[in-house]
């Protein structure tokens, strides 16, 4: 299934929530644990630009389709941050740019693959490394879709659920891009398969690990991926990844849950 980049860019929009009655949150506020997860998701969405940077230091930045996608993707994710910030604001949790800046300064942005390492590695390995990025991105976007849908189910708050489904729908388009790119690139190169397998197995971590504290990562993982239903979602993400050329048998999401002692 080809991904139509022109169609994607033409239809890329900021997620809409103005038509949703957010004042409902004042009457029916969300529980503490949910707000904590939302805050995590909100921060991660705002920090997408940091992922963008990690992607750009490799040869990916030269491909016109990839740069077109990244321009739109980065903006859509920013708007997810804005939408979630608006929900949090109804609960008097204010997320402002200065505070985000403080998070980035305090914790430092240490994605598993930092730019220097990536740049060195990416440039040595060359275009095969784009495949790694694409499959990495796909794993993250699959996680995002699962997380938003799962939170919508768990909370069953009509306004929140509608917003989260809208966000998940956009994330699904990101999945389509990354997965298509990853599949094509992996299928073409045995070397890329070996590299992707190695990178995912050894370096992948749940979205946000590295920039958020371990306590927060653990809370969100437990909240959204814990228990039998959560684990089922995690297994689905792993199954998607394992269907990629050369990646069969990988269970990176479930491994990450096990490593953090998240109850099944």
């Amino acid at each position, binding site marked *: 299934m080809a991904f139509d980049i022109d169609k994607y860019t033409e239809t890329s929009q900021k997620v809409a929530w103005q038509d949703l009655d957010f004042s409902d949150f004042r009457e029916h506020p969300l529980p503490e644990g949910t707000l904590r997860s939302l805050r995590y998701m909100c921060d991660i969405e705002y920090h997408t630009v940091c992922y*963008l940077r990690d992607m750009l230091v490799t040869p990916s930045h030269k491909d016109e389709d990839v740069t077109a996608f990244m321009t*739109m993707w980065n903006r859509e994710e920013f708007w997810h941050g804005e939408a979630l910030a608006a929900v949090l604001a109804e609960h008097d949790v204010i997320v402002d740019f200065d505070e985000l*800046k403080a998070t980035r300064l305090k914790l430092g942005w240490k994605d598993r693959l930092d730019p220097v390492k990536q*740049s060195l590695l990416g440039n040595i390995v060359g275009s095969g490394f784009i495949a790694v990025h694409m499959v990495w991105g796909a794993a993250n976007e699959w996680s995002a879709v699962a997380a938003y849908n799962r939170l919508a189910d768990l909370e069953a708050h009509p306004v929140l659920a509608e917003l989260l489904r809208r966000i998940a729908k956009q994330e699904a388009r990101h999945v389509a891009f990354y997965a298509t790119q990853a599949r094509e690139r992996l299928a073409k190169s045995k070397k890329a398969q070996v590299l992707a397998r190695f990178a995912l197995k050894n370096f992948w971590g749940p979205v946000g690990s590295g920039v958020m504290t371990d306590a927060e990562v653990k809370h969100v993982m437990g909240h959204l991926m814990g228990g039998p239903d959560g684990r089922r979602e995690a297994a689905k993400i792993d199954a998607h990844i394992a269907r990629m050329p050369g990646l069969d048998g990988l269970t990176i999401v479930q491994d990450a849950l096990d490593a953090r002692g998240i109850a099944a």
Partner: protein
Amino acid sequence: MSGEQTMSVEEEAPLPFDVRDFARTAVGSHRDSIDLAAFAEHPLDPGTVRILAYMRELERSTMTYLRNVLVTPTHKDARVTAFLTTWAFEKYWIADAFEVIVQAHGYDAAGIQDLPRLRALGLEIAERATPIVESFRANSIGADVIGLHLASVTIDEWITEAAHLRLAALDPHPELVKLLATVQTVKARHRRFVEPDAVRRLTDSKRARSLARRALPRTSWPIGASSLRRSETAFFYRTLVSEALATEIDEHVRSTLPGLSTLTLVSTARRRALARGGASNEVARRLGRAASLLRHPRAATAAGGSTGSAAADTTGATQTTGTTDTTGATQTTGTTSTDTHTEQKGGAPG
């Protein structure tokens, strides 16, 4: 009445730039407002199309720019990254608008990025090293680098603004003029963010000023030009940025951005672009000269001997164009239309 009031309010208290409002009201695709039939009926001058193809590449180079900017502490400033996110989005659609028009004229823009082999290799090495070098260097410098980045966008926007105004004057096709006016409104907002922010950061920090003074002359202007064919950058300057205009922009840089009073960025970039200078061109010239001697021994004998360096230089210069142009046939056509364009329109308006 109300108009006057608005004016005075604007003059008295410029509101601080609202990044969230900017993001909310970002301007996307221009496709629906471009009347391609008007171009079919009255096509643009070939030189204008060539410039638009070049400008398309400049607008589309945001990801390469961000690549070098985001590895520095600039990425930690959420307000700046929020701006850059929307800025890249709007520039993408400006590039798209130019592309639509270029394609409608059947212009083959593929050659713009085809660089002579030597330069391509140099660029490749530089591109691979830049984020690494930038990361180490800028992270040791710290937040002062943000001032440099905002100053570079500011200066680039000034160059672009001047170029757009000039292009609209040279080829006042109503559809083009309309589009360029829209593009300028979009870009005016970019300037409203980057300009005061750059001024503030440079004013506040001596280190930021000194960094900007050292780093800005190393940038190829306009931003994005470093990965495009030199012939196209030369055409851009030759057609749109006269020496007087370059000086004017430089004066604006010096009088607006603190600490840059010694810089002549645009004049220097213009001179370099037009001189076809640079190390790789010198190499190409020598290679070209050698090749011409090999291929045309008789011509070489005729021109050679004590005729001296002047004759050799002429051959060299011609050859350089030849060497560069071999990479793309489009280019040769382009070069011809360059002169036509300059001759036709060059002297006309201001």
